[in-house]
């Protein structure tokens, strides 16, 4: 079963990888994705990023999407940690870890979860930069990335 956390505190990638490996099942591939606060967004130098979220919806939907990822990519396990609150350049925001028998499934599971987090998870970033304070705009490229996962996975006539 997936392990999901939404928290203010930092996370330790090594500790999370170790915890997942302890699940001990027969895994051949482990992928981790860490999202970090960048120092620059276009030309703006970021001084602070504040993440707001909708806890009840995040919790409910993250469990559902993680279960879907586990089933769809035959993941042995997955782990998602997302932070909220004030963050600074270099700080980790999000961690996704997937474990599978083979590397393709582990990579695809992690990308699927990240595309979902970017387009559906109810988090909003407010950025303080050299240009003042502003809410970060959603990226069209993220929507396009997420769309590829909605293609049918079962082809007609068993092909």
């Amino acid at each position, binding site marked *: 079963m997936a392990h999901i956390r939404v928290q203010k505190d930092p996370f330790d990638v090594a500790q999370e990888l170790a915890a997942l490996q302890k699940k001990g099942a027969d895994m051949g591939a482990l992928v981790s994705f860490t*999202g970090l606060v960048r120092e620059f967004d276009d030309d703006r130098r970021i001084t602070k990023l504040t*993440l*707001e*979220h*909708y806890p*009840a*919806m995040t919790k*409910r*939907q993250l469990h559902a999407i993680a279960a879907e990822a586990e089933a769809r990519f035959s993941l042995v396990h997955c782990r998602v940690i*997302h932070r909220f609150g004030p963050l600074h350049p270099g700080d980790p*925001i*999000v961690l996704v870890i997937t474990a599978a028998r083979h590397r393709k499934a582990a990579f695809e599971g992690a990308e699927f979860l*990240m595309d979902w*987090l*970017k*387009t*559906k*998870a*109810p*988090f*909003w*970033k*407010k950025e303080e930069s050299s240009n003042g304070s502003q*809410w*970060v*705009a*959603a990226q069209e490229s*993220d929507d396009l990335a997420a769309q590829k996962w909605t293609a049918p996975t079962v082809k007609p006539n068993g092909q």
Partner: protein
Amino acid sequence: MITCLYFAWVRERIGCDEESLSPPSEVGNLHQFLDWLSRKSAAHAHALSDPTILRFAINQDYATMDSPIKKGDEVAIFPPVTGG
């Protein structure tokens, strides 16, 4: 009674993060609810003026304009998400 939650700049424009609302009985779906809500104050009208740049959830699931709304529901209004 309907609990209505606001996030990000929607929250800032409306000026609060949560309201308990009692729309009239002819408000049966999200479209009708937004129509009614946007007449509540100038701040509401401003925040909800362009629904195409907003996203909605009812009871923590994404909702569309024709999604039904009933007493006891939790409605959330927010801009497109920017997490991850």
